[in-house]
């Protein structure tokens, strides 16, 4: 399945449509209330705060912490199911195409100021930040660390910029009662949000690359997920166009299978030989086997 040169527009359209579709409860924005219907039993694949007035489904990271915050310990099978299902089918395609906060960072990166950077200094170390956030804030934090005896959703409470942007700002803008309760924690979260948004103008998706625990989870599925970016080694002329275009600075051998690849498709878009393209896992191997069989028959 080749998507060709229009991929940038297709991706932006998909990102916008998905964000509007999953945050389409317009009455929530007008009335400062959140959707309380049956759809919230389901989780969206990307980071999308369920306290966003427009959100029609649940955030998987918030849902994971809600399950971990229950009395006693219970394996959060429901959310693991969501991760396995979306991860096995799409991998970090979710990050590149379906995450609302990823879209915000993408749009900020398009602002033509500053000399753009793909990565922060010390990237090799900092890229493990998302795994630290996953273990310390999502798992350990939710279970016992930062909450002491009372469990808290530590990632949502202390770090998540999506909650501040999509949840806090629209709700606080319409509810005076909530505004009266603003304290140090809100300013801490607002500071993190502003820092990340400011950084997004200069560096490609800093939150996704260094802090997002959802990206850490989906990255694990990249190696074997159904949707892949295939690289045909035989056709490649090693021009380096893909490596230059890759917004997260991956080499052509790393593209698609690396946990850092968000499957944005920019490599496929610029490849002059069309040796990089979206496909499903094993498609190339099946083609090779089929052509081999034909040769034998002939």
């Amino acid at each position, binding site marked *: 399945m080749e998507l060709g040169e229009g991929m940038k527009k297709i991706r932006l359209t998909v990102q916008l449509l998905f964000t509007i579709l999953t945050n389409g409860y317009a009455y929530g924005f007008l009335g400062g209330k959140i959707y309380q219907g049956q759809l919230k039993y389901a989780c969206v694949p990307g980071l999308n705060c369920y*306290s966003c007035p427009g959100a029609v489904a649940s955030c998987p990271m918030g*849902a994971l912490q809600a399950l971990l915050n229950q009395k006693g310990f219970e394996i959060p099978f429901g959310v693991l*199911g969501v991760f396995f299902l979306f991860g096995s089918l799409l991998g970090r395609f979710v990050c590149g195409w379906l995450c609302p906060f990823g879209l915000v960072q993408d749009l900020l990166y398009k602002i033509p100021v500053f000399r753009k950077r793909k990565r922060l200094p010390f990237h090799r170390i900092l890229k493990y930040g998302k795994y630290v956030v996953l273990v310390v804030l999502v798992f350990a934090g939710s279970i016992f660390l930062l909450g002491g005896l009372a469990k808290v959703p530590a990632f949502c409470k202390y770090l998540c910029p999506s909650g501040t942007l999509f949840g806090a700002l629209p709700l606080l803008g319409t509810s005076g009662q909530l505004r009266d309760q603003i304290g140090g924690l809100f300013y801490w979260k607002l500071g993190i949000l502003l820092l990340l948004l400011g950084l997004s103008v200069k560096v490609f998706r800093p939150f996704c690359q260094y802090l997002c625990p959802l990206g850490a989870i989906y990255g694990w599925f990249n190696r074997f997920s159904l949707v892949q970016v295939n690289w045909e080694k035989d056709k490649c002329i090693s021009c380096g166009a893909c490596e230059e275009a890759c917004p997260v600075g991956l080499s052509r051998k790393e593209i698609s299978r690396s946990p850092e690849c968000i499957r944005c498709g920019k490599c496929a878009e610029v490849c002059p030989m069309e040796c990089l393209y979206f496909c499903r896992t094993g498609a190339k191997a099946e083609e090779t086997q089929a052509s081999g069989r034909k040769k034998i028959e002939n």
Partner: protein
Amino acid sequence: MSFWKKIRRQGWIWGVLAGMLFLAIGITGGQFTVIWRKAVMVCLECIGIG
């Protein structure tokens, strides 16, 4: 094709099956009710005032 290559090629199928199994366990265990209860209330922690 080696055993491990075959497994990797089919990895997504096993992942989807595991996902469906986990979802079924989660649904029967009432975990999505817990998620729904949390999601329909304004999450004060998420918006930074809890």
